[in-house]
């Protein structure tokens, strides 16, 4: 076969056309900026009060949130969210370790737990409002009760899957129960536990908002209701922005926590791959 007949092999394009210091910021910000520009243009050409321009949403954001409402509505909401998640983690891991390490207890409780996990958490909000009233306790309990199940069931699963050899070695060396828990069971279950925590975070955030929509007088969920009743379009959009930022903040915090907790695990994975 002659040279002219072979197809030209397409080489990868040289990657140096964009200077390297510019590439990362461009990757990060090009599309968001494009979207905001396009949105602004559309709202100038065809203004629609329901889709306020990004600049107006920005104004509403500053006007509504960068003042004392941050202290009276945003921070208390976030505090309850944090407390609820913390409670869910403590309860989930505590009960999960107990139930996961005792076989008959696990078999006894797992079906009931599977059912509790299946109940869509928002359904329990009206029930808990009824039983506990619409105070801070109820809101924290709602968040914890909804966010607990993924952590609990994943912990059970993780504890169950602890390496048999490790467990028996620990027993042969007569490691104390406490040491066994801290050095074998919990580390070995931690990837599963973290996966459960990740699932529970988004549920917790939803529950934070919903719990503040019933009979509330403050908080982010309450603000949403007020804006909705007043047909305040720009503030409505600003709350999406605010809750998006809260979501990103949660995701970043989780990633940091995961990196700390699972350092050994990533090291192990890399060692296996090498």
């Amino acid at each position: 076969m002659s040279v002219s007949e072979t197809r030209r092999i397409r080489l990868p394009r040289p990657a140096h056309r964009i200077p390297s210091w510019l590439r990362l910021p461009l990757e990060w910000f090009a599309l968001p900026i494009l979207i905001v520009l396009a949105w602004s243009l559309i709202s100038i050409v065809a203004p629609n009060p329901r889709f306020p321009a990004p600049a107006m949403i920005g104004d509403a954001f500053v006007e509504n949130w960068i003042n004392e409402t941050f202290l009276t509505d945003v921070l208390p909401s976030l505090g309850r969210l944090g407390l609820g998640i913390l409670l869910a983690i403590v309860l989930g891991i505590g009960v999960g370790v107990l139930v996961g390490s005792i076989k008959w207890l696990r078999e006894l409780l797992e079906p009931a737990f599977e059912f509790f996990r299946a109940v869509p958490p928002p359904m329990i909000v009206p029930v808990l409002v009824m039983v506990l009233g619409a105070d801070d306790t109820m809101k924290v309990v709602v968040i914890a009760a909804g966010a607990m199940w993924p952590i609990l069931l994943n912990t059970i699963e993780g504890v169950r899957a602890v390496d048999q050899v490790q467990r028996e070695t620990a027993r042969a060396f007569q490691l104390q129960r406490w040491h066994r828990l801290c050095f074998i069971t919990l580390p070995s279950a931690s990837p599963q536990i973290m996966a459960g925590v990740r699932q529970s975070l988004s549920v917790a955030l939803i529950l934070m908002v919903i719990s503040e929509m019933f009979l509330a007088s403050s908080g982010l969920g309450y603000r949403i209701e007020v804006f909705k009743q007043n047909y305040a379009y720009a503030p409505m959009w600003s709350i999406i922005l605010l809750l998006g930022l809260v979501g990103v903040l949660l995701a970043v915090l989780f990633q940091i926590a995961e990196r700390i907790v699972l350092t050994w695990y990533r090291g192990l994975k890399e060692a296996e791959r090498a």
Partner: protein
Amino acid sequence: MRGTSTARRLRPVLLGVTGVLAFLVIWELATRLGWVNARYVPPASETLAALGAFLLDRHFWRMVGDTMVTWAIGMSIATIAGIVLGTVIGLSPFLRSATRTTIEFLRPIPSVAIIPVAVVLLGPDRDASLVIVVFATFWQVLIQVLYGVADVDPVARDTQRSFGIGAFHRFFHLVFPTALPYLMTGIRLGATVAMILTVTGELLIGAAGIGRLLMERSTVGDYAGVYAIVVTAGLLALGINLVVRVVERRVLAWHQSVRGEVLV
């Protein structure tokens, strides 16, 4: 020999049933003996009786049907959109890196934040409810499809490239089978999320379904009915979960995760 293996298989079932029964008994006792306020927490027997009465009630079944329809429509839209966009973005390294920050910002927005905007745009109805269902479910599917499409074996990809296999075959014989296990994970996670947001829409927006029925019963003061609806929601979600798992096993019957470690 057979007897012991049957007993071993029956043991978890029996214990599990015992656990559920024990929970019901404790619930019953707690209300009968006054450990909790019986006005707001009706006994288990009353709740089950209310559930039984619902089963004969046509309004109840219509509400269950409405919930399932909203769930199914939302799930379908989110899945199709997730597959299409996930494949388009996932196959192009340029699009993948260009969309990353946007996706990472939009994804964690809790759907409930969109409720006011959805309601003013579409009215307090199923449409507004669907917006939040689709928004929440879409990300679950999209992220998994993105991972799945990126997971294509480089050797297989280079092989098909050197054999000059066209884009159509490449998608159906290489990309799709690789992404399928990821897609099924996305659908499984999405199914749960879609159910959560479906009842949320009914509770908060007032779209027809068991969520609205719960609010109605709660306003009338029929607390046993309220608890019966919570149990119904749990059973529905459990049923959906079960069906999705069965479908997943069927669809991935060829895949190693289901087939077990026969060969590598």
